[in-house]
């Protein structure tokens, strides 16, 4: 059987300091198939791909290429073996011409000099194979992302030895461009190429792939034949919630929402990031945004907090219409935002816990109404105690804390500003179970004290547990809302899997 595999990874394990990224994962790619690799953030998709392409080495396991064991040490070595990858962000040089991007590092030569004419002709021929007819002498940056992606594929196909890895190639393409890409993929498949396709768009998986391998938390969930796996099953494999009749319905679902609106967005949208969406948050309400990675869940939060500028729609806070939103204004209006990526956008690693906590409050007060050190310590200690942040003192560098405690510090930063609405993007990702429970409990307590909360989370149980109402997103569109009795994990999973047609009209409140 194993001779069928063009690429076979067996029992791959890989750890980074503190994290086990992959444990004992198998992955087999056959000749002439398109094989989807799926999983939520942190499932280990990109780590697995990076081990095969020589970016990382692995701790244990074996990789075989056409039956022969290999161990590429660098992308160059992997390419020489015939494994090439097209990444989500086009990893080519925008300043070079199309032709050169295809041939750099292996230019055709004449008498020792680079033979430009031959290179142009060769690249035109290669692109023709992908049905692409463009001027190859133009710099790559002249063309749209879709064409750049095609150029990257042309390069990869030319280098490759029967294997092509496409790492989320469709996330920045529109429907037509995706269609064109799929045409090319099918053609290459017919030519006998094995294609690994990483994506989080369910429809696309069912449109082109033959097989699906699902990863979760660095382990293999299973390999399935696409036609024999229902969408609902796939979603539950990815999210890791099995079908069960005993559902944990929302703890607060029974409470009726008869509160005043705090924030209202109508047809708020931004091209290329989220289609126009309607959304209301009541005072003291906990609203959840559910959806897979890339469904537009984070994008909504960024629009509301003014990090990205909406190009259409109206945002109303406390009855006041906001014409243009930016973070300072959002904070003045009583909003707070804990971002998804704690390291990059949340903590200032070098500063102390105290400084991280008072940062937003101080920014709202301005440069000159400085909070005296004594007061700062008071605030910091108050929240360290309140949120049970585990640290010897408020003067520790925040980067020395664990993930859960860092998250609590960011929460404390916003609580110190006495917010009216907290936007929590993946508040418990990458946090140990104990802290996870504490943070969820805290969210409920905060809501009880009258703060509105908008939670974004990939973990359905978390969202069901904490929210009064949940908006379900898919492919950057709001496909429905659930609340009350229908707020169950399997309902949401089914909605995500099947799309809008079954549940709720978009924009409708309640189910």
């Amino acid at each position, binding site marked *: 059987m194993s001779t069928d595999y063009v690429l076979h990874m067996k029992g791959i394990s890989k750890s980074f300091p503190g994290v086990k990224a992959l444990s004992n994962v198998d992955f087999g790619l056959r000749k002439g198939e398109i094989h989807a690799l799926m999983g939520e953030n942190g499932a280990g998709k990109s780590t697995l791909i990076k081990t095969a392409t020589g970016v990382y080495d692995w701790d244990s396991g074996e990789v075989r290429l056409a039956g022969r064991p290999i161990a590429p040490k660098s992308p*160059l070595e992997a390419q020489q073996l015939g494994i090439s990858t097209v990444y989500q962000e086009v*990893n080519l*040089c*925008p300043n070079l011409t199309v032709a050169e991007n295809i041939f*750099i590092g292996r230019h055709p030569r004449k008498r020792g000099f680079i033979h430009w004419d031959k290179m142009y002709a060769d690249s035109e021929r290669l692109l023709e194979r992908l049905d692409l007819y463009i001027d190859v002498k133009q*710099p790559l940056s*002249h063309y*749209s992302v879709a064409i750049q992606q095609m150029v990257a594929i042309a390069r990869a196909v030319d280098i490759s030895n029967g294997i092509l890895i496409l790492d989320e190639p469709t996330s920045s393409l*529109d429907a037509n461009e995706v269609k064109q890409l799929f045409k090319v993929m099918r053609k290459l498949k017919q030519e006998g190429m094995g294609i690994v396709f990483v994506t989080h768009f369910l429809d696309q998986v069912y449109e082109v792939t033959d097989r699906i391998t699902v990863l979760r938390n660095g382990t293999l969930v299973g390999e399935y034949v696409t036609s024999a796996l229902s969408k609902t099953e796939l979603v539950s494999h990815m999210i890791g919630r099995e079908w069960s009749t005993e559902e944990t319905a929302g703890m607060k679902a029974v409470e009726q929402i008869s509160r005043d609106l705090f924030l209202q967005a109508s047809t708020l949208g931004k091209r290329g990031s989220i289609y126009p969406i309607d959304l209301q948050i009541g005072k003291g309400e906990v609203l959840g945004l559910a959806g897979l990675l890339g469904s537009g869940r984070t994008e909504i939060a960024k629009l509301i907090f003014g990090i990205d500028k909406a190009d259409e729609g109206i945002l109303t806070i406390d009855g006041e219409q906001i014409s243009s939103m930016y973070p300072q204004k959002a904070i003045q209006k009583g909003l707070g935002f804990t971002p998804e990526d704690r390291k990059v956008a949340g903590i200032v690693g070098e500063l102390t816990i105290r400084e991280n906590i008072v940062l937003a409050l101080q920014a709202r007060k301005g440069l000159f109404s400085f909070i005296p050190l004594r007061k700062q310590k008071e605030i910091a200690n108050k929240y360290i105690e309140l949120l049970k942040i585990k640290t010897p003192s408020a003067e520790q560098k925040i980067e020395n804390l664990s993930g859960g405690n860092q998250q609590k510090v960011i929460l404390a930063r916003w609580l110190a500003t006495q917010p009216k609405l907290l936007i929590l993007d993946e508040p418990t990702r990458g946090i140990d179970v104990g802290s996870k429970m504490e943070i969820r409990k805290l969210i409920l307590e905060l809501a009880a004290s009258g703060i509105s909360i908008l939670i974004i989370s990939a973990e359905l149980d978390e969202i069901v547990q904490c929210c009064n109402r949940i908006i379900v997103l898919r492919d950057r569109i709001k496909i429905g809302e659930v609340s009350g009795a229908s707020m169950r994990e399997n309902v949401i999973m089914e909605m995500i899997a099947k799309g809008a047609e079954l549940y709720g009209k978009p924009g409708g409140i309640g189910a």
Partner: protein
Amino acid sequence: MKKVSLKISHNNIIVLATLLLLFILYGSGAALYKGFFSMQVFLNLFIDNAYLIIVATGMAFVIIKGGIDLSVASVVALISMVSAALFQQGANAFVVIFAALLIGTLFGAGQGYLIQRFQLHPWIVTLAGMFLARGISFLISTESIVISNPTFVLLSQHKIYVWEKNFITISVLIALAVVIAAILIGRYSSFGRAVYAIGGSEKSAILMGLPVARTTITVYTLSGLFSAIGGIVFTFYMLSGYSLHLMGMEMDAIASCVIGGILLTGGFGYLIGPTLGVLCTGIIQTIIMFQGTLSSWWTKITIGFLLFLFMAFQRIIVMRKEKSALPASKNKPNFENKVVNL
């Protein structure tokens, strides 16, 4: 040969602007001052600036790669000093030239190694290199040393007549050879293309499997070598070694690159650019000389002003490119795709 067609795109717009500036400067000089429009005045631009053309061309490689080399001027001074000192010891002219090239190359390679191996900031490393080279020159002597070696004097004073009484020097030939070699390396060698690729996106270059580390070190080595050649040419020109020669010339070299259309963020620019940039600054100097009453510091101010203009110009082009790179504007007519035929 390929047909040469003039097209304006964001790739060559700066270099075209430079050419235009060159014509305007030269034209206004010729219109304003008698005797400006003479063959010899034009040739003198090359004779007086041969060393700068060479050094700036070396700098261009570093900038295209996305780095910088502040040590070039002091390396030139060091070479002049070492040559003078070696001649005092009675060395042969060719031994001196060989030693000079070796010193420049090793100096550049050392800087490149520090920058690449320990990921140090090129500004800091080459700033230190600048002080190091000046410091070594000072150690050799703080006085100016005159060179009277017959071979050097001969090489220095030999006139090559190109048109009646108008002449160039051997230095000009060396400079032209260096520029041509640079253009060939930049366009027709793997190393040259890797330099452009790294300047465009170092991350992509690594993922495409290009030898990034080797290229980086080679680029600084090349800049060191070009500085050494520039140093020899400059020594021909001055016939003396002095540790305070060419203070601040690294800025002239950078300015020439910027005016010549080399993008300071890396990845873009033609290797003929620095030569055009040097000619621009050379003409400004000549105009100020012809004018007679303006003092020499006006040269600095004008060049600084041009530097700012071209930098702002570059920034605008880069910003517009970033904007057009957004997927949202994909369907809009793309400004940069417009090609105007001249």
